[in-house]
């Protein structure tokens, strides 16, 4: 289940496979995923988004920062495909660059979250005892505080660069991954192949990287897929509140906030980034659902 920010739903299911079954598992998963139309459409939308983001790095129809490339509040037309905003900037161009920001935030945070969450989760799940006690307590404390507010304060303390925002979001949203990996490790370390490796004197770091991590990969991928839209949503909230990336870099959240005051005369200024944002989030959530069903058929709703 994907969650809106703040509501945590643990997905502590276990990737129940031996290493030698891996190849067939991935092949099976791919076959199941291909049959899921929603997930396929979502994948297509997301690929398109990636292409747009890459293209926007080199070319946009109009320079995004230049004001008055057209009249202000102009509705969508042939010249300006998605219209212009309150400063006469081309919305289509800004939307393209916004995709870049959203993807950077989404993927960037998940890389940090994965690095932090997997490490912490593996350690807690494998060594248990006092280490697990401390880590679990920290996880629970983080769950108990409103993530967006902490991120806001972090942005206040650190500043508004893209890297700082990514850091701020990752710091407040790493717990789901850590908890998942911890649960997986907990279950996997009891399995025969891990016992065997331990009995033959394999060192913990090798057991974790060779035996446990590969077997927990499926759920980790699913979790990361659900984590991306959460991070994007988060950045949109920050930008919407005026605390996201520094203008004039366009962000979908900031674009929506800009247009809100002109809702009556030019609703397209809000609607365009709002729809882009919702579509992207939906695509990630459907893909996550599809991946989960594909990688763990027993979890099916």
């Amino acid at each position, binding site marked *: 289940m994907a969650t809106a920010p703040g509501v945590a739903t643990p997905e502590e299911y276990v990737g129940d496979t031996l290493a030698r079954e891996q190849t067939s598992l991935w092949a099976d998963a791919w076959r199941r995923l291909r049959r899921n139309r929603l997930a396929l459409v979502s994948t297509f939308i997301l690929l398109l988004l990636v292409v747009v983001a890459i293209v926007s790095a080199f070319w946009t129809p109009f320079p995004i920062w230049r004001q008055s490339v057209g009249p202000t509040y102009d509705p969508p037309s042939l010249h300006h495909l998605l219209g212009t905003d309150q400063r006469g900037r081309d919305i289509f161009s800004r939307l393209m660059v916004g995709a870049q920001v959203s993807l950077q935030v989404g993927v960037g945070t998940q890389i940090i979250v994965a690095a932090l969450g997997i490490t912490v989760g593996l350690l807690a799940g494998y060594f248990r005892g006092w280490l697990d006690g401390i880590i679990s307590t920290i996880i629970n404390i983080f769950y108990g505080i409103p993530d967006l507010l902490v991120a806001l304060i972090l942005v206040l303390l650190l500043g508004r660069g893209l890297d700082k925002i990514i850091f701020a979001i990752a710091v407040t949203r790493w717990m789901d991954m850590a908890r998942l990996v911890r649960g997986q490790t907990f279950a996997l370390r009891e399995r025969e192949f891990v016992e065997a490796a331990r009995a033959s004197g394999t060192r913990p770091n090798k057991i974790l990287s060779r035996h446990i991590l590969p077997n927990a990969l499926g759920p980790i991928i699913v979790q990361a897929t659900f984590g991306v839209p959460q991070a994007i949503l988060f950045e949109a909230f920050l930008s919407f509140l005026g605390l996201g990336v520094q203008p004039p870099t366009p962000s979908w959240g900031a674009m929506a906030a800009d247009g809100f005051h002109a809702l*009556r005369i030019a609703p397209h200024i809000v609607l365009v980034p*709002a729809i882009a944002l919702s579509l992207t989030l939906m695509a990630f959530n459907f893909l996550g659902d599809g991946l989960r069903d594909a990688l763990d058929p027993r979890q099916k709703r």
Partner: protein
Amino acid sequence: MLSRRALIYLGERLVLVAFTAVAVSSIVFLGVHQLPGNAFLSDRRIDPVALQAIMHHYHLDLSLFDQYKLFVSGILRGDLGESLVNRGIPITPLLLREATVSLEVGAAALIFTIGLGMVLGVIAAIKQNSWIDYLATATSVVGYSMPNFVIATVLVLIFAVYLYNWSGGAIYYEIGWNGTYGTLGQISIPAFALGFPYASIVARLTRASMLEVLRQDYIRTAKAKGLSDRIVIIRHALRNALIPVVTILGPLTIGIITGSVVIENVFGIPGLGKEFVQSILSRDYNIVIGVFTFYALAIGLANLLVDFLYTAIDPRIRY
């Protein structure tokens, strides 16, 4: 009503809530005070003598340890200090008033979230695999994929623009309100936008837990007694299905608080969330700390309420 044991438990938990609130605000306090002292004053062009006076007024000239001591002793008396921007304005009464505004909207959103979520979830579960079920499931994916400000925008567009034009002004919605508290009509749209993403989550959870409960043996027993389907669902299934839903009430409260920060700014609701963003933008650190303390208290109390709800719903759970 409440047994002696329950009262003692309540007391212990209240102390814990207060302790947590102090701890949380301490962390924010210490984090914020890593910044250099004069960052606390927005007015940079002030002359050194006056600056010194102001620094002194806010105890910013003291060592961090002494400032912290003053802060903790203040917070224990319920005094959160003075606003840095609007000098001389005490923070506690200001935030207390704003908290009641937020509470009004937040409570409306929470009631709406749980109500709609449970109704959708129960219907989807009873009519499993029917079109209602698919519609409810699809709605919930859309629900949690739409940022609340997008939902707010769409609603405002519909009610304040399209329906307004269509009905020639008979239907209207005013963004932002003039008084402190909103009317029922005014809070309806913010509460909807605030609650809808979470209603989706409640609906999914209720559906799953309802389906689980409907498979249980005691439901068969209830039917075997000759009870009507309606009574079986309301009396036997719903109450058991409620237990996992209560579990997410804590996270739900945090979610509503988080969402209210955005929604209050969209609709110009003079609550804690709007104050929080305003104080961050204007760098009024004292208020930032104060709002955080309030939120920590609210979350602690919500969790406490959840625990008591548990014992009320499930007789197997005792304090």
